[in-house]
């Protein structure tokens, strides 16, 4: 076969970077982070998954099937949009938005679920499980399961089930079973524990679609690869539109899949500054936040070593963010590595700053952003005035805000 075609496929799927950045290593480590910290029962199934994924990512038939789905079902490529009016009001650099909010199901999550569901079908699995916090990944999983005729079970903390009723209903409409998880803090981390328990029990027929760049190897690599479509498109679009690369990238970081999807194709572009924005909640000094990179320390949870929110005894502590999608005590191990290696810089914005950015973009551009993405917008709002007018910032607008109407209204003292 033509090696050039193979190379381009490899590059497309995120590998093929021999000369420069090429992580993880063969066993899933990003420096000291990542790895496979799971019970023995899962080790062989993870190895099988890794092998199946390696085969698919160099299989032209799989890739063309994925491409067709991303184009016809998700609606890719998503545009970049120059937020001119907002940029003028903010003052300073020109701000461009990568419009992942325009994807089918309303966020970047579907880029990954499409890929993993195709892989599940290739592996002959008939049942899909997923964890979800706000419900976006659950909806994206239920959506692709419906389309491929796969059974789907979504684990969701009991607390989240109560505060995200609309998404629970969407998942049920799509034919998924939503299981309310009653253990631990009854939120996203516990949903992930419960999905792992299901997987270990039903390993023969079940594929676990993890929704972010966390979990044991190969998940952080595989989810990243499926999400790099964001950065590959954006890189070409910025070159085409402005004739050069952006000066800065900004994305919100919960688990960090939208961020790594944007960042990864730019990692070797040394002149592009990279900023990841965590959920500062009520402020880092209050302890009520979800910012492990900014205020946590390294540890092991959910199959990988990474920065965590934990107490002095290594127990995982509860997090807080107005945005359910960022409300997680860990973060993808590749972000931990990018922080330590200083290739990316991580900062946080508070609930109030994110809300202000939510309103500001909505009023000036007619785009209602997700509260998660509003964290990235709030950071861009701080960054732009420190830059020149002829410089540019590319913000990943990772999702739309329709799901957040109740949260924002209740914050404003209204009941919808």
């Amino acid at each position, binding site marked *: 076969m033509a090696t050039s075609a193979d190379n381009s496929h490899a590059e497309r799927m995120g590998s093929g970077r021999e000369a420069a950045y090429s992580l993880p290593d063969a066993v899933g480590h990003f420096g000291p982070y990542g790895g496979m910290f799971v019970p023995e029962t899962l*080790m*062989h199934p993870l190895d099988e998954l890794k092998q199946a994924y390696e085969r698919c990512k160099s299989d032209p038939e799989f890739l063309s099937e994925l491409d067709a789905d991303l184009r016809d079902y998700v609606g890719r490529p998503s545009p970049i949009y120059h937020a001119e009016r907002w940029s003028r009001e903010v003052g300073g650099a020109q701000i461009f938005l990568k419009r992942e909010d325009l994807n089918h199901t309303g966020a970047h999550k579907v880029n990954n679920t499409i890929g993993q569901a195709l892989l599940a079908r290739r592996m002959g699995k008939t049942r899909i499980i997923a964890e979800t916090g706000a419900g976006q990944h659950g909806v994206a999983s239920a959506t692709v399961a419906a389309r491929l005729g796969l059974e789907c079970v979504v684990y969701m903390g009991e607390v989240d089930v109560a505060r995200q009723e609309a998404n629970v209903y969407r998942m049920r409409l799509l034919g998924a079973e939503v299981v309310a998880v009653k253990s631990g803090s009854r939120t996203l981390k516990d949903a992930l524990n419960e999905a792992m328990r299901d997987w270990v029990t039903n390993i023969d027929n079940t594929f676990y679609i993890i929704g972010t760049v966390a979990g044991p190897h190969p998940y952080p690599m595989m989810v990243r690869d499926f999400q790099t479509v964001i950065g590959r498109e954006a890189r070409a679009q910025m070159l085409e539109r402005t004739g050069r690369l952006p000066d800065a990238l900004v994305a919100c970081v919960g688990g960090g899949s939208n961020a790594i999807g944007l960042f990864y194709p730019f990692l070797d572009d040394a002149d592009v500054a990279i900023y990841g924005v965590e959920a500062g909640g009520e402020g880092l000094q209050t302890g009520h936040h979800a910012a492990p990179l900014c205020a946590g320390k390294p540890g092991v949870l959910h199959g990988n070593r990474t920065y965590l929110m934990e107490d002095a005894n290594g*127990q995982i502590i509860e997090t807080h963010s107005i945005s359910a999608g960022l409300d997680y005590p860990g973060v993808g191990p590749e972000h931990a590595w990018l922080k330590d290696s200083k290739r990316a810089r991580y900062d946080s914005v508070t609930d109030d700053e994110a809300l202000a950015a939510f309103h500001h973009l909505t009023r000036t551009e007619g785009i209602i952003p997700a509260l998660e993405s509003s964290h990235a917008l709030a950071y861009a709002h701080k960054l732009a005035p420190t830059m020149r007018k002829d410089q540019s910032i590319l913000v990943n607008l990772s999702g739309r805000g329709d799901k957040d109407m109740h949260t924002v209204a209740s914050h404003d003292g209204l009941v919808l």
Partner: protein
Amino acid sequence: MSRIAKRFEQLKAQGRTALVPFVTAGDPEPTTTVPLMHAMVTAGADIIELGVPFSDPMADGPVIQRATERALAKGVRLADVLDMVREFRTQDAETPVVLMGYLNPIEIMGYDAFSERARDAGVDGALIVDVPPEEGHDLVATMKAQGLDLVYLLAPTSTQDRIARIGEVASGFVYYVSVKGVTGAANLDAGDVAEHVEAIRRTIALPVGVGFGIKDPETAAKVSKVADAVIVGSAIVSRIEALAERPAEIPATIGDFLSSLRAAIDAA
């Protein structure tokens, strides 16, 4: 020779199978655990597995999850568990104690500090559920330097290659997880277990314990015919849960249950 190796040697000489109960340390009260450990030894326990509470026990079923939550609510942490073992040792210098838990509390304490403190307290080994040999290199080295055994899990999904790899690093004994699932899962299939245990014995010379899904004397008796150790956890912990409001009754009740398991194993 480690206390664990010595215990298995004695049992082999007597032609007996080990009975290994698991309890979560500090469940339902921190003061319950040490008297319970002594009661279990009196009732026929040969080795005690002590669960270290962790906020995110992803390999455990609902019974042990709830035990963990009860212990955490009482403030029981790794350092407290080590204190319990130290107290146990003042009256029992013979019965091996193996800690079972997850890596993060150990990671925070530090591998060196953990290994030293565990040895000083009288711990004999540890089974860290989320550390496969691939990730355990530093921990294995540190623990072995302190004379602690590192017990590994084997599963129905473990390939021959993996069994060999685990054989290279495990010490004390290996723990065969008899079903695909979490602790306290469905009943095991004794025939299937026998086949897997034989496959493990062909590669690993250490004693083989079998656990997950052993709920009653009948199953314990069946498993004891093929295993060197019968490990029982959720069936004990659910009895503790039923007495959570009357903790004074726990040692006697669990002692009676273990006696019934002991009798069935010895008669098998």
